[in-house]
């Protein structure tokens, strides 16, 4: 009854001036409907019955009739769309249902991060992924089984990257997803201070604190069906032409319990991930020392930080030296002020140029005959991104070129 008049500016003469809001229009009671269900009526049959028993349906405009029908179908005859997983569908599904698990990283922001960091085949991309693995997976998708994405972490507990499993990658692609502590990446770069760092990292406090962090970002609650486009097509009319994977409680649930059970990494670096003949399909093995050494030699080709709730400013200054000169980077955060401070510090330290803070803005439109307009509800916040290019400052010329 709250239909907006001007949503049907067609030339039909019917309008809702004669409709009164007295809740007596539907003569079918909920008991009647329950009875139909017990007798095995299909959802579509119930919807037809509801329409037949509505005293106002005939008086409604065509658009109102359609809306009524869709509403009832949603309730009594829900449908599910099956879809091949990709970064867009995974990102959209989480964003809609479990935004906190991906740090509310909106799809357009994710796209920007990938472009700004020049991710492509043969890239070696360093990521600080505190968005559950969505970023790591999206990078790996672009690598297509070449290069590497290295998910780094401060402290001893890995950042959970369970969402990577949602991508259903081949083992070839999975083998390109590795993890390494920031300390390991540094130890090998600076052989002199390894023992010091090891000592620091073993303290109990650090371990406990990263635990808290991990929990706050990926809650233990199990996930339910991700029905992103639930009423679009019938399960029965599943297109058989492509391999689909359902987002459901099973697939998502199977990764959930592991969130907190990632073993603290060992000092032993024998768990290497070699090129493509790896037996295990699981992504995120510890980076081999050969790999880490090669990054020391060549530098990472870019950096993406998606740690939405963390003060990232000083971390960026620590991570930038791991990048090769002229490598681009992109830092995603929920707060503007820390990024501004970080940008100012990078300007002052002459570590980077082409610095820019930007904010993605996204709007979806309904395009229908005579009813075209932007969606009435929108996501008003896609985070802030600091992007730039690491340069070869005079200081690093000295230390790195020799």
């Amino acid at each position: 009854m709250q239909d907006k008049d001007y949503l049907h500016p067609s030339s039909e003469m019917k309008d809702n001036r004669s409709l009164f809001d007295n809740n007596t229009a539907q003569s079918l009671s909920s008991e009647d409907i329950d009875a139909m269900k017990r007798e095995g009526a299909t959802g579509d049959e119930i919807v037809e019955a509801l329409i037949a028993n509505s005293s106002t349906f005939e008086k409604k405009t065509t658009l109102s009739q359609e809306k009524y029908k869709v509403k009832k179908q949603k309730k009594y005859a829900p449908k599910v769309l099956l879809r091949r997983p990709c970064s867009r569908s995974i990102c959209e599904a989480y964003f809609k249902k479990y935004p906190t698990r991906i740090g509310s990283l909106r799809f357009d922001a994710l796209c920007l991060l990938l472009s700004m960091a020049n991710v492509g085949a043969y890239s070696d991309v360093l990521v600080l992924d505190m968005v559950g693995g969505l970023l790591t997976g999206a990078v790996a998708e672009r690598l297509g089984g070449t290069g590497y994405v290295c998910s780094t972490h401060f402290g001893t507990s890995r950042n959970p990257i369970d969402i990577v499993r949602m991508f259903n990658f081949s083992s070839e692609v999975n083998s390109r997803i590795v993890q390494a502590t920031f300390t390991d990446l540094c130890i090998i770069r600076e052989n002199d201070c390894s023992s010091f760092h090891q000592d620091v990292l073993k303290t109990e406090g650090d371990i406990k604190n990263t635990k808290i962090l991990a929990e706050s970002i990926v809650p233990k609650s199990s996930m339910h069906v991700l029905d992103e486009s639930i009423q679009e097509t019938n399960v029965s009319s599943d297109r058989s032409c492509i391999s689909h994977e359902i987002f459901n409680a099973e697939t998502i649930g199977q990764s959930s319990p592991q969130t907190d059970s990632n073993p603290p990494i060992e000092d032993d670096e024998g768990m290497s991930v070699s090129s493509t003949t790896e037996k295990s399909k699981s992504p995120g093995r510890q980076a081999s020392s050969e790999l880490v050494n090669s990054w020391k030699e060549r530098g990472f080709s870019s950096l993406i930080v998606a740690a939405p709730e963390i003060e990232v400013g000083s971390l960026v200054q620590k991570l930038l030296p791991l990048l090769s000169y002229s490598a681009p980077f992109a830092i995603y955060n929920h707060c503007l002020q820390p990024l501004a401070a970080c940008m100012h510090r990078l300007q002052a330290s002459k570590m980077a140029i082409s610095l820019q803070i930007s904010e993605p803005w996204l709007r979806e439109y309904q395009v229908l005959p005579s009813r075209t307009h932007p969606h009435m509800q929108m996501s008003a916040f896609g985070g802030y991104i600091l992007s730039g290019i690491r340069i070869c400052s005079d200081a690093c010329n000295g230390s790195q070129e020799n």
Partner: protein
Amino acid sequence: MFSSDPSKRNSFQRCICDGDLVIVYERHDNMKAIKVKMGSDFQNRYGVFKHSDWIGKPFGSKVFSNKGGFVHLLFPTPELWTLVLSHRTQILYLADISFVISYLEIVPGCVVLESGTGSGSLTTSLARAVAPSGHVYTFDFHEQRAALAREDFIMNGLESFITVSVRDIQGEGFPDEFCGVVDSVFLDLPQPWLALPSAARMLKQDGVLCSFSPCIEQVQRSCETLRNNFTDVRTFEVLLRMYEIREGRMEVGRNGGPMLLKPHKKRQHLSSEGECEDEERTTIMVKPCNEARGHTGYLTFARLACT
């Protein structure tokens, strides 16, 4: 809400009287309009509030329930009314309303036509702008809706500024009595182009018209029609983005180690000199709210061409 008697405006002296309309404020997103009536009660989840306790208190007072819960009693304004009114239709909100009032150049003394009345969200702001000497004539084709809007305006004490009539403006046009005497016209109709010829007859020369439409097709068709006898046709969209604040807790661990989420060390020496600002500012986080109204409608304005 407001009246042609300046002594009735809110002030330190003006206290809540029996029969006043007050806005009962629980939270930013939870308010209600209540007519104060000696002997009545107001009840919410915080307990029962006696109207008799309210009478004689200044507007803006905090009042308590039998259980010690409290609400604030606010003086009604068009902005607050928009937040509490019954939604009988989609309504216009602050951003659109404020833009329309200013763009239509409505000032005290103006005569304004509006159709449809809808839930009357814009109408009270129109009335405030024309008061004390102007008038708003508002039309809705839906009889029940017009009647309810009229009741609302009376409850707000605005009956001397607003006249509500039942009329199908798209079909019949505005009444002839307004021919050439109207300063501004506001249309919120499904097919605004049908009402434009009549609106043009009503307006004074150089008078301003606004048409609000959610769909771009309505705008396209209206603009086409407007070009016949209007000038300065311009279309806008206005929105408001809201921000939320919280006490910040971001800190970085020492030694390059893991990052900690530290609780905020609250330093509450709030002097009136503002000396503690620096410490405070660093710990207040502000970010846009996640969800927002993404679209309300397009506002198309035009001036009646002088002949």
